[in-house]
């Protein structure tokens, strides 16, 4: 199982029956593949609907039905469409149970940077700032390091997406919760040791008293 699959499988276990979930593009999108069959989860697509389904078969694309990345998707039975003000009313108003997003950097205060690298990449924040502020739970799903460098920092150096909003970080190495005391490692992938993880994490890691094996 590769790192991304480990992460997506673990994040999927966070979702509960009746949840409304917004998945970011890239790795977070993979979470949809691992939802337990016995629960009913609705995916919200910030471009204007709830009830996002999988990609259509080739030749069955509907030009009027795309996701927030502009890619053809399908809608499940019971989907509902709305305009962008309603869509972000749902997001900002706390009606999304959780948003799963990637990150460039996260820090001990729950700050998140995932929308620009000054002078290099300025794609715009799209809906990310609203999602991170508005969703009831913010789950960051990302590989633990980028080119060997830690992405979990004492303090973000890139421009923030939002201050103090991250609740949970899931990487291929483990699961971390952001608390008032700092970042707590609550689950660990048994392929790694605590020392392995600390070595590639710039932030101070608090090890949970009841540190568990990461369920995947």
């Amino acid at each position: 199982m590769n790192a991304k699959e480990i992460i997506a499988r673990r994040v999927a276990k966070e979702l509960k029956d009746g949840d409304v979930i917004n998945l970011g593009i890239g790795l977070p999108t993979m979470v949809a593949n691992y939802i337990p069959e016995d629960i009913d989860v609705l995916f919200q697509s910030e471009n204007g609907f709830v009830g996002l389904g999988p990609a259509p078969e080739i030749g069955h694309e509907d030009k009027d039905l795309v996701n927030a990345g502009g890619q053809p998707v399908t809608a499940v039975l019971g989907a509902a469409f709305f305009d962008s003000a309603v869509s972000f009313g749902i997001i900002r108003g706390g009606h999304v149970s959780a948003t799963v997003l990637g990150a460039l950097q996260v820090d001990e205060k729950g700050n998140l940077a995932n929308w620009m690298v000054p002078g290099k990449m300025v794609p715009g924040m799209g809906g990310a700032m609203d999602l991170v502020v508005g969703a009831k739970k913010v789950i960051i799903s990302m590989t633990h390091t980028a080119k060997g460098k830690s992405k979990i920092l004492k303090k973000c150096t890139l421009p923030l997406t939002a201050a103090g909003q991250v609740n949970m970080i899931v990487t291929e190495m483990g699961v971390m919760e952001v608390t008032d005391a700092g970042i707590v490692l609550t689950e660990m992938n048994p392929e790694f040791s605590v020392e392995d993880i600390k070595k590639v994490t710039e932030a101070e890691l608090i090890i949970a008293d009841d540190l568990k094996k990461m369920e995947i």
Partner: protein
Amino acid sequence: MNKIVTLEMAMEHIKDGMTVMIGGFMACGTPEKFMDALVEKGVKDLTVIANDAGFPDRGIGKLVVNKQVKRLVTSHVGLNPEVGKQMNTGEIDCELIPQGTLAERIRAGGNGLGGILTPTGVGTIVEEGKQKIELDGKVYLLEKPLRADIALVGATISDKKGNLYYNKATRNFNPLIATAADLVIIGAEKIVEVGEIDGNDVMTPALFVDYIVEV
């Protein structure tokens, strides 16, 4: 009042230097024929307010590639690398706004509100130059309304008076911009008789609409 006009007649209203809101999300719901007509017409120095910059060959992106946009007010330009290039050369001025804030600012502009308070962007560079208001222990940014000279709206169906219906994800910013411009021009895929869209299902009432083009 006959609101149905030809593409050419509709495009005559768009002049150099105007502020134009354009509907659509990554080109889905964007009135594409209007984009082509504007490229052909060559109108320039536009300020465009829209969710995103589309793709280089689709949606609003075409106007950027053809260097007709002086200023872009949007939430996302990542799928149109031409914007980044023109930002570097100083050919385009780009104001990035969180998507939900952009939607609310346009809605405020069309609904006669002086602004809205949002928690989005607090503690980020989005708050620069904006009034911060603390209410009941929480900090918000005061975001001001946005309006335009022209709104270019993509609709799936329009009746002959301009009652509009948008299919699926084409709705996005279209009903919002239809409220917030001095002149509202609809590119409708289909024009039907009045009454064919049930009054319950009308998504933009005709009172917002000035001109309709079948595209």
